[in-house]
Structures are given as C-alpha cells and as structure tokens.
C-alpha cells in the first residue's frame, strides 16, 4: 500500500497513516493481523449480508409484505386457532346455512350443520405440517443428491443421475396414489414426505447442472488447490451460492405439496383421521355441492382457503426471486415491473 493510494481514499487515510508511520517499517499487509475483526463484528456483518439486506430489499416490495402477511396469518391460525375455538360438532346449527347470513356461523354450515369456519381453522395445522415437511424433505434430498452428483462427478454422478432421471420419468401423482394405498399414511408430516417423492428429482437435476458450472469457477478451484476438505468446501463455498435457489424452491415446493395433498384427499385416496380442506371438499363434492346452489359454499370455503394460501406463497416466491436475483432487481429499479424469471417454478413442474 503506497502513500498515494492510501491518501487518495479519504476515509482510510488515518488508519493507514498510522500503520505506515510505524518505526520498524512493518509492511502494511502484515499489520492486517491487528485489525482482525472480532467474532461479534463478524456475526454482525454476516447478519447484515444474509438477513438485514435481503429483508430490507424484500420489504420494499409489496409482494413480499403481502405474501408474508398471508402466510403468517395461516401460521397463527394453525398454531392458536384450535386453542381458541371449540371443535366442530354435528348438528351445531341448521344444515347448509349460507355464508354471511348468521354470525354464529360466519362461513355457513355443511350438510350436518357443522360450522365451516371452525372446520377450516382446524384444518390449517395439518395442512401446514404437510406443506412444511414436504417442502423441507424435497429441498433437502434434492440439494444433497444434486450437489453430490454435480460436484463429485464420475461413477457417483452416473448412479445418482440415473436415479434422478428415473424419478423424473415416473409420473408423480399416480406413484403417490399407488404407494398410499398400501402404506396408508395418516400423519400429516409423513404425508408431506410422501408427496415429496414426486418432487425432489426435478430440483436435484437443476442443482446438479448448476454445480457443473459452479465447480469450474476459480474460487472453487483455488479452494481445491489449497486442500480444503470437500465437505467444508461444499458447505462453505458452494451451498451459499445455491441457497437463494433452494429457498425459492422451498416456497414453490410448499405450494405444490399443498396442491397435491388436497387433490389426493379430494379424490378420497388418502386415509384420514382429522379433517382438512381436501376432505371437506371431498365430502362437499360427494354430496353434489357442485350442482346444488344451496350447498356451493360448502365446496368454495376450503377452495378459498387453499387459493389464498397459495397466492401468499406465489407472491413470496416472486419477491424472493427478486431479492436474490440482482438482474431482476436492477430491471425492476429501472421501472420495468413484474417478475422476470419463474425458472424456479419450472424446475419441478415445468411451469404448470
């Protein structure tokens, strides 16, 4: 560090002047040791880059605010709703009261006079558990398999890629239906894991192809040259690069898990113990709510519950895309609005 450059930058002038005036004439780069940041500073810096900045960017975007608001409403309802509200009883009210008619049953009642609002609230927790476990499992398996295949290459890659491609080729929903007949999962967490069987492979494939590019980057090569152990290299160098993609996929997987879970309950394929939106839909449909105008609300209440939650998830995913994807962010600040890439969605479903 020469005097000229140190002096040119006003803010660092004092610090470097101090270092350079050292009588022994210690070269500046050695004295970097003295200015090593404390652990606390390091954590606060990490907090800044990984938490505060993304959050700040997100909260500038109305989608993130609305999306998070919707999702947290569901979480609060799922967590505390059953504590505040009494469980549903048959014959509580008149059968098939229309919504917004009787404030004792704001969303109306079903054929047996059960309050639909209470049923919706009680259904929230199992659905959220399915969604969480399914998304978590999808992302975990997808990331691990994709990273190993892409980074390690060779025979391991061949084996893992074959497994991945096989799973991509097997139609997911029929597979889950067939499996569920024999295994009969009832626990929502298990159901979530079950549904992720059909989802992880798409993510694994796209993460693998990202790693194929990533592992040729200079920072990875230099880490390898320095002899950084593979596990540490993957954890410290590669995963942070994948994290944004993984987070977006988590949100999208959550949405798809709900869609398929509700579909399977709606078809009456999965066994159940507690009620959830899909089961309410199934009962309504079996009772002909789709052609009986007086019963239509029975079908629509759970439908709205699902659509509203998934609107929240879509908004959050789009906003996350923007936070993590600087190119999209730059575009949006130039005035061009709306999202540019729904690429994360397509990894699993081909844009459906």
């Amino acid at each position, binding site marked *: 560090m020469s005097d000229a450059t140190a002096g040119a930058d006003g803010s660092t002038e004092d610090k470097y002047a101090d270092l350079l005036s050292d009588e022994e004439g210690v070269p500046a780069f050695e004295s970097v040791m003295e200015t090593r940041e404390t652990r606390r500073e390091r954590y606060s810096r990490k907090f800044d880059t990984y938490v505060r900045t993304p959050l700040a960017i997100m909260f500038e975007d109305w989608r993130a605010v609305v999306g998070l608001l919707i999702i947290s409403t569901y979480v609060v309802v799922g967590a505390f709703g059953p504590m505040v509200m009494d469980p549903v009883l048959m014959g509580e009210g008149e059968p098939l009261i229309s919504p917004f008619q009787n404030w004792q049953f704001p969303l109306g009642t079903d054929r047996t006079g059960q309050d639909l609002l209470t049923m919706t609230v009680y259904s929230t927790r199992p659905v959220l558990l399915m969604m969480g476990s399914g998304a978590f499992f999808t992302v975990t398996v997808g990331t691990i398999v994709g990273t190993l295949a892409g980074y390690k290459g060779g025979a391991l890659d061949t084996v893992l890629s*074959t497994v991945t*491609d*096989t799973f*991509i*080729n*097997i*139609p*997911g*929903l*029929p*597979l889950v*239906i*067939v*499996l569920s*007949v*024999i*295994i*009969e999962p009832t626990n929502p967490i298990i159901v979530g894991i079950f549904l992720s069987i*059909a989802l992880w492979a*798409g993510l694994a494939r796209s993460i693998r192809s990202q790693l194929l590019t990533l592992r040729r980057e200079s920072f990875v090569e230099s880490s390898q040259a320095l002899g950084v152990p593979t596990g540490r290299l993957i954890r410290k160098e590669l995963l942070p690069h994948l994290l944004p993609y993984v987070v977006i996929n988590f949100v999208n997987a959550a*949405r798809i898990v709900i*869609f*398929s879970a*509700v*579909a399977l309950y*709606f*078809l*009456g*394929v999965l066994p159940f113990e507690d009620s959830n939106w899909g089961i309410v839909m199934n009962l309504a*449909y079996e009772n002909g709510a*789709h*052609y009986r105008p007086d019963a*239509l609300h029975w*079908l629509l209440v759970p*439908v709205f519950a*699902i*659509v509203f939650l*998934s*609107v929240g*998830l*879509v908004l959050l995913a*789009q906003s996350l895309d923007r936070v993590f994807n600087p190119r999209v962010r730059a575009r949006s600040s130039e*005035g*061009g*609005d*709306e*999202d*540019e*890439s*729904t*690429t994360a*969605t*397509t990894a*699993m*479903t*081909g*844009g*459906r």
Partner: protein
Amino acid sequence: MRWTVQRLLQGIVTIWAVMTVSFALVRLLPGNPVDFLIVDLVQQGVEPAEAAQRAQNMLNIDPTKPLHIAYFEYMFDVLQGNLGQSTWYSEPVTAVIGRALPWTILVMSYGVLLSFLLGIVGGAFMAYFEGQKLDLALTSYATFMISVPYYVLAIILLVFLGYRFGLFPASGRVPTGVTPGVNLPYIAGVLHHAALPILSQVVITGGIALQMRGNSIRVLGEDYLRVARLRGLSDYLIATRYVGRNAVLPIYTGLMISIGAMFGGAVVLETIFKYRGMGYYLVRAVQTRDFPLMMGAFTVIAVAVVIALLVADITYGRLDPRAGRGEV
C-alpha cells in the same frame, strides 16, 4: 447417436423400475394385496385352495413361489402384455386399459399442446407490450392462475359451464344416440365432451406464459438482436427466427418435465369430469381395491410418460444441437 442410445436406456431403466415397484408393492408390503384378495375370495365362498389359485391368476403373482422366481414370472407376463385380471370389472386389465388409454391421450395431448401454444403466444404478447396495460393485465392473470390448483379451476368450470349454463356435458366421453365412427355428429360430440377437461388445462397456463415473457424480454436485450436490426432484417424474421426460437427452447424443456405432471393431473381431472380414461380407472381401482387394475394402470401411465418424454427429448436434440450431443 450415443446420446440417443443413452436416452433409450434411461427409458428402459424407468420402465423396469416402475414394474419392480409394482411387483414389490403387491408382494412385499404389509397388508399385501395377495392375502387381501384371497381373504376376499374366501369370504365370497370360494374354497381356500382355489382362492389362492384364482388370486394368483388375477395378480400374476404366485404367493407360494420364491421371491425371485415370482419376480421373473411377473416381469415376463407384463412384458408379454398380460397385466392380470381386474377383480372389479371381471375382465383382463389390458381390455379395460385398452378402452381407456386413447381417451386420456386425446384429452392430454390437446391440453398440453393448446396450453403451451397459448402460453407461448400470450407470453410473446406480454413481452412485446412490456410495461403497458395489456402486459400488466395478462401478467396479473397469469400470476393468479399459478395460485389456483388446476382441479379447483376444473370444478369451477364444471359448476358454471357444465351445470349452470349447460354449455358442455358434465360427464362422460361420448355422445349418446350417435353411431360411433368417422361421422361429424360423433366427432363433434367427442370434442364437446372433451372440451371441459381440455379447457381446464388450458385456462391455467400461467406459468408457461410468464416464462415465455421472461425469456423473450431477455433475448430482446441481447447484442445479436441489435446487430440483426442494424442489418435491416424484417421484424417478422427477427420475431420468429431470433426471439421466438431462442425464447421457446427453454420452454420445450419445461414441456418435457410437465408431461409427467400432466398425466398425474389427468388422474384428478378425469375423476372430476367422470371421463373414463386411465386416471379415472386408476382412482376407481383404488376405491374398489382392484389391485391388478391399479398396478396395470400405473404401469401403463408410466410407460406412456416414458415414451412421451423420449420423443420430446429426441426431438429436442434436433431443435438444439447442443442437447443432441449431451452438452445441456
């Protein structure tokens, strides 16, 4: 060439995996269907020894034989096209499936093609009018459509177009009182019946349109496009050869992945519309615990998906030479 062979092998591996899964499910898991079927038959008053024999014929799996022999026999039977006997419909599974498969292919292929076509055209329009009112409206519509599960939309279409306004038949797949064959009333009736299942796939096409929009906008910013304009190429040429082709390529990959998802969706759609295709029978088989039909339907759906993906992959190699060499 090497890539095509690899891709074929991949397809074979998948079909083998599906068949093995079917076998394993029937044979190994607790509450196994072989026992289930035997108990069922005995309850109907069949002698236990004969029940075991009949169950074996129906499922293609002999519970008394050692695992590996039963496995090879099962594989051999399936490869020869013998999928066992449906317990609910009391006829060979292949007969039930043979009647159902063409209808699923009809509904699914129209659904896939139309929704991709509409998505691509819609996305291109959105990109062209980027930032204007039309773009905003279409983008909001597409975003909302991603949030609605396809089967919810199907129910809504059924409620309104099927029951309220009676525009389309609410169930079934062929018109009544018309002679089947190549005649106009029959074909029109078939399309009329297929309309709702197809429509509920098409209306939901938000994801593809958004992807196309993003791709087109990205391509529009590329340098080679500026060069093309400077060379004075016509707008039509630029739109189709330069922007269109490059923006569509990534979507084609999406199409391939979505084929599997769509066959899964067929299960739900066909049940909603009581459209007797593969998916309808799969659900019926589950409801009636008709294991041979269930496994048969699952295997055939999987084979159909594998073939569709194979065709898509190999044609993609022609569209994008890099893929044909296995570079993408």
